[in-house]
């Protein structure tokens, strides 16, 4: 059994990581999942969260928002709409992400007043975003949240 697989993380603007890993923790939309070599082929969408890749050289963590992960027989490919190494995320970056989510939530509430679906989705996105902030040790400035 192969003990490592290929892992690559790409954002629309550039490729952030391409390396051999033993396991990847993916923040899936339906819950976290860990992919190891020989995982059955899966495609899952992402929620905002922390992605952790464990390789022979140690653990690397990235903050990702939106996108999807493709687990195939050759490895794991994560296509994230926004991705940053965890240590590079500044408070400003985080604030702008939260604000964006908050705006989307506000807009969804206005547009779909009596339809719970889209509003709940936006609320979940916002909650995920805030939870991610707590996870990486950042607080939200906005008191309204």
């Amino acid at each position, binding site marked *: 059994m192969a003990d490592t697989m290929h892992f690559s993380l790409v954002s629309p603007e550039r490729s952030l990581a391409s390396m051999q890993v033993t396991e990847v923790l993916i923040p899936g*939309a*339906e819950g976290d999942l860990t992919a190891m070599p020989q995982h*059955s082929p899966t495609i899952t969408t992402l929620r905002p969260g922390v992605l952790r890749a464990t390789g022979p050289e140690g653990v690397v963590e990235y903050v990702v928002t939106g996108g*999807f992960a493709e687990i*195939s027989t050759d490895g794991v490919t994560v296509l994230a*709409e926004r991705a940053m190494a965890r240590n590079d995320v500044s408070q400003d970056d985080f604030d702008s992400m939260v604000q964006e989510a908050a705006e989307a939530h506000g807009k969804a509430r206005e547009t779909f007043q009596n339809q719970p679906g889209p509003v709940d989705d936006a609320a979940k996105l916002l909650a995920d975003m805030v939870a991610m902030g707590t996870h990486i040790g950042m607080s939200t400035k906005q008191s309204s949240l």
Partner: protein
Amino acid sequence: MPSLKDLKNRIVSVKSTRKITKAMQMVAAAKLRRAQEAAEAARPYAERFNAVMAGLAQSVQGSDTAPRLLAGTGADQVHLLVVMTSERGLCGGFNSSIVRKARARVQALLAQGKTVKILTVGKKGRDQLRRDYGAYLVGHVDMSEVKRLGYVNAQAVAKDVLDRFDAGDFDVCTIYFSQFVNVVTQIPTELQVIPATFEPAEESTLYDYEPSEEGILADLLPRNIATQIFTALLENAASEQGARMSAMDNATRNAGDMIDRLTIQYNRSRQAVITNELIEIISGAEAL
């Protein structure tokens, strides 16, 4: 016959023009390299995305639950053309060739009795289209403030398009941009993004989907529009710099030729003046 002084002035002015075009060419070359790198860096994402989408699209195709972004609205009456051009001129036929392509399409659609709406990205295309099709322009995205093209810019355009689609403003959306091949070749291209079209996937691995296939598709289709627009914008940026580089290279060479011609003319007329003076002196001496 221009005087010596006039010729001298012209040579000086053409020389300074050549300096400017030479500088612009070098700036364009540097920018082109960066634009190409950006386009290169974005390629893996777009390729993977497209491959996954193609697989997904194939499996839902034909089912009644296919999202509207994929299946279309069922009508084909109102067309939205997104024409992407540059913010600056002096780049050869770059903008004109994109506009020409879009214009041909507009004419074909109007001839079929369809309704046309045009959304322009970049000032130059809007200026060219406004003359003939001012009535069809429904919006404009200004990119002049954008220093470095980012995914956010593409998202803004995509959001504009999607908002219009959700509001039922159009049925079919096509984007116009220039595909970068190399410095001398850029191909104006049209690509239909709504309803989405995909190249058929070759391999089809059986995937588990989390959440359902439809759920993923609904989530990814809007992102796919943004990705396609982002790719188009990057291609466009590289094409623009490539076109400008070759246009400025031509201009520099033309200026050089012109300077050569003017210099010969200048030298000839100077020689003629000297000869004239000599003749005057000699005939004056002979008369004595």
